[in-house]
Each structure stands twice: as structure tokens, then as C-alpha cells.
């Protein structure tokens, strides 16, 4: 366990070292949040609700989005692709270290810093906007939300891992990974609440694991679903996570085997 903790600490330092990169990343994310918020506010106009969301709920959706993006949507996919294609991964495979554990530790370090920054930005935005926020009073909601977020980040991590593992077979996995991440953001409701979409499309997306990453957790937070249904969603998400995890591991093992067979 210790080695993962050390990896975590080192990664934490490294991210702090590259301070300009960090600031740039956060500024960029902030810009996205501001535009989304402004757009939604413009949409809601003078009406009381839009798509069933009140002003306060809308603002909360956007702010929660910022936090979720920095916690859920960071992964080690691109690094994995880089390490496989450059051959650096061989050095990890021979160490008494689980690559996944290691990657998770590194990812956690990233998440720590980004979430901290995100909270800061969100508070800043909330103050600037002087808007009402929707904060659930039921402690069960907070608990369910936390579990959902945890599951979501693991789900994203392993999904991305799965797609990045393509790099074992082709040097061109950057393209599919790019495509995947883009599609994911839309389908997860990270740009706009899926309520906007026509019913048919929405139902189709809800059959995939994607909406579980952002859309459902936020809905749980906004208490748009009764607790019983929320638990059902979490159960579904857990099932998806297990399926994705199994698939990712299987592909990983195959990949490592074929990679080693070629002599790296």
C-alpha cells in the first residue's frame, strides 16, 4: 500500500510544479462553466422553470458540473497511450506493482488538486452571481451523491483505460480515444442536461453507462429522484462498473500478452 501512497505524493508534487499548466487548465474549465451558466440563464429568461429546473437548480447543475468534471473526467488514458507506444510501459510491467493501482494513485493526485481548485472556482462563481443554490437538506442525498460520484469516477477511469488499451494493438489509438472522450462528454450530460434531448434519444442514451457519470449523480443531488429510485440507479451504476472493470482487465491482459509477444 505504501508504494501507492508514495506514487500519490510524487504525482501531487509534480502537478504543483507545473503551476502554469495547472492554472491554464483551471482557467479553461472555468471559461466553459461560465459560458454554460450564461447560456442556461439566457434560456430560462423570465420563466420560473426551464425543462423542470428552477433557476437555483440550474445554477447548482452547472456548478456541480464543474466539480464533477474535475473529479470524474480526469483519467490516465492519454498517459497510457503514450507509455504503450513509447515502450515505457515495459518498465512498469516488470515491477512488483499493479499498473492499475499505480495509475489510480496518480489519477487520485490529479483529482485532489483539480477538485480543490474547482471548489474554489465554484465558490467564486456562486458569490459573483449572487444566485441561490440548491443545497439538499437530507443527509441521505449527500451520502447517495458521494457514492455516485465515487462510482462515476471509477467508471470513467476504467472506460477510458479500456479504450486506451487499444494502443497495444495499434499506434493510432489517439484518434479513437479522442472520439470516445468527446462523445462521452455529450452523452454523460456534461455539456447540457439530457432533458433537452427528445425522449427517444434520451432513452437510448440511458441504456448506456454514460449518463451515470454526470447526469444521474446531479439529478440525485438535486433530489429529482426519490431515494429508492436513486439507490436503484446506484445499483445499476455498480453493475456497469463491474462489467466495464472486467472488460478492461480482460483487454488489458490480452494486450500485455500480445505486447510482450512482440518483444515490446
Amino acid at each position: 500500500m505504501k508504494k501507492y501512497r508514495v506514487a500519490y505524493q510524487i504525482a501531487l508534487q509534480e502537478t504543483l510544479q507545473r503551476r502554469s499548466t495547472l492554472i491554464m487548465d483551471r482557467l479553461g474549465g472555468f471559461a466553459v462553466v461560465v459560458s454554460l451558466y450564461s447560456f442556461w440563464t439566457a434560456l430560462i429568461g423570465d420563466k420560473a422553470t426551464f425543462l423542470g429546473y428552477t433557476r437555483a437548480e440550474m445554477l447548482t447543475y452547472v456548478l456541480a458540473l464543474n466539480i464533477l468534471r474535475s473529479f470524474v473526467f480526469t483519467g490516465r488514458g492519454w498517459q497510457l497511450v503514450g507509455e504503450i507506444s513509447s515502450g515505457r510501459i515495459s518498465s512498469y510491467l516488470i515491477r512488483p506493482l499493479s499498473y492499475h493501482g499505480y495509475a489510480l494513485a496518480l489519477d487520485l493526485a490529479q483529482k485532489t488538486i483539480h477538485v480543490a481548485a474547482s471548489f474554489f472556482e465554484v465558490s467564486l462563481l456562486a458569490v459573483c452571481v449572487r444566485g441561490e443554490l440548491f443545497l439538499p437538506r437530507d443527509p441521505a442525498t449527500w451520502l447517495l451523491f458521494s457514492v455516485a460520484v465515487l462510482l462515476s469516477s471509477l467508471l470513467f477511469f476504467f472506460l477510458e483505460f479500456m479504450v486506451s488499451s487499444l494502443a497495444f494493438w495499434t499506434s493510432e489509438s489517439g484518434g479513437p480515444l479522442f472520439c470516445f472522450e468527446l462523445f462521452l462528454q455529450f452523452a454523460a450530460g456534461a455539456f447540457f442536461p439530457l432533458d433537452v434531448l427528445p425522449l427517444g434519444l434520451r432513452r437510448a442514451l440511458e441504456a448506456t453507462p454514460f449518463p451515470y457519470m454526470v447526469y444521474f449523480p446531479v439529478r440525485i443531488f438535486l433530489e429529482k429522484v426519490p431515494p429508492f429510485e436513486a439507490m436503484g440507479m446506484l445499483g445499476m451504476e455498480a453493475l456497469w462498473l463491474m462489467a466495464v472493470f472486467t472488460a478492461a482487465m480482460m483487454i488489458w491482459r490480452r494486450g500485455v500478452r500480445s505486447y510482450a509477444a512482440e518483444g515490446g
Partner: protein
Amino acid sequence: MAAAIETKGLTKDYRSPLKEPGLWGGVKSLFDRKYKDTRAVDGVSFSIEEGELVGFLGANGAGKTTTLKMLSGLLTPTSGAATALGHVPWKREPAFQRSISLVMGQRSQLWWEIPAYETFRLNQAIYGLSDADFKKHLDELVDLLELGEHLSVPVKKLSLGQRMRCELAAALLHRPRLLLLDEPTIGLDVVMQKNVREFIKAYNKRSGATIMLTSHNMTDVVALCRRVIVIEKGRLLYDGALDRLVERYADHKILRARFTTDVEPGDLKGLGVVVKYEERCVTLEVPRAKIAASAAALLRSYPVADLNVEEVAIDDIVRRLFTHA
């Protein structure tokens, strides 16, 4: 005739950020950056005539590559002056750039996924070569470097040696008057190194181009350059003929002998300094004046199976130079 290259007091300073270890150091670096200043090149002055083949010797980080880069116009010096082919290099005038070429070992200007020929055509456009000139120069280089079908194969599919030859062709298409080579043989095997060296020598003779090369591979310098410039910690230590470098700084020669039976090394002290004794083989350092006498004495008094007299290795000379400086 004005020198091809002339430098006066060339100096280059670098500034690099300091990174403190540890987590706290990481957080601190977010707010307060400290820097370290290094003087890579310190007041280097020399003059090179047209057509010379000069070698720059020095340890890693000694400043030889930095000097070369300043002469190519890549870097602007912190202070000092230089002219090459009548131009100030870092002004990067097109007329100057059209008459020089830079080759960097381990770095390639060839595009990786496509045939080298395509990069050649790009260079044709960049250097403004007419189709006739391009064809003429290319044919000549293909001949000299034996490129043949290598031109139409994607560069990534070529062997290291083939790639190096294509790289040289790309650099010489426009017939530069000044050729700068930075560690051209690094990473190549012994045979390839020899081929590259021979090509450089031949090219220098054919075209009369001025050639400057940096290397920390002594064989390159010894084989190619009559004149060397030794740089250590940014300062010019020696500028002159290579053989005089050996003479001046090596006041002794090396005597190696193999014996048929075991010999007590202490007994040999009178003949010279015993550097090494291993399995009946001894290595002695003998002052130049006494070399003949010591060799004769060895043969007379000891059961010698094999005897060799050598010059001190250039590496050792350079090392000694560095410690003297």
C-alpha cells in the same frame, strides 16, 4: 583573405528554474520561483579559414554544442561577436542561411512517415533550388552516399545507417559553404561511424567547404581533424594542431608488455610508472626521452612475450587538460 569564421569573446548564459524537492517545495514553487544562472560559453575567440576541417573537443556540457549553435544562428550570444562567411550568424539573413547547413546527431530533419525524397523536395523549395540544380545535386549525393532505392522508402523503415546517409544528403543538397556537424556519429556502430567520417573527409576535399564538427568521440576527431579546439566549462583551453596537443600535454608514452611468467611489478619501477599490472601484462608510463631505453631494458632483463609502444590516448590527454585548467 578574410577568415571564414571569426569569433571574439563569445559568451552565452543560461537561466534555469530551480525545483525544490518534497511536497512543501512543490507548493512553494507555485508562488516563488528561484533560478540558476549558468555560463555555458565564456569568452571564446578563434578564427577558421575557408576549407578547414576543425574539431571541437570537450566533455558533455562543456559548451561546444552551444558555440556551434551560435555560429549557425540558432542562438544569440549574451555578449561577444562573431562573423561567419561575412555575416553575423544570429541575424539569420537568408543569404547566410542558404550557404550553411547544420547536422545534429540523433536529431533528424527528415519527416518520419514518408520517403526522404519528399523532405528533399521541401528543402528544394526552402533553399530556392531550380529543378535542374536540384536534380544535379541530388544525383551527385545519391552517388556519393549510395542512396539508391532508399529515397522512396518511408524514413521510419530505413536502418539507422541509411537514415544518417539520407540526413547528410538533405543537409548538403544546397551545397553549403559551411557545414556544422554536432555529434554526427553518436549512436552509430563502428562501421557506420567510419563511413560517415570518410564521407565528411571526402566532401571537404571535393567541395572545399569549411567543416566544423563537435564530438566527444576521439576517433572522429583524430581521423578527421588536423586542428582541434578544446573547450572545457565554456572556456577555450587549446586551439591548434592535434598532434601538437598530444606532444604538449603528454610528456610521456605508454609502454605495454606481456610476460611469459609472473613478474613482480615493484621491480619495474625504475623503468617508468606502473599504471596497471594484471595477469602478466603491465602498462607503464614512460617519459618520452626514456622510452627507447626503457623498452630495451625490458626486453633485456625480463621474459617479454609481446611489447607495444603507444601514444597516450587522447581521452586521457583531454582529461588531464581539464584537471589542469
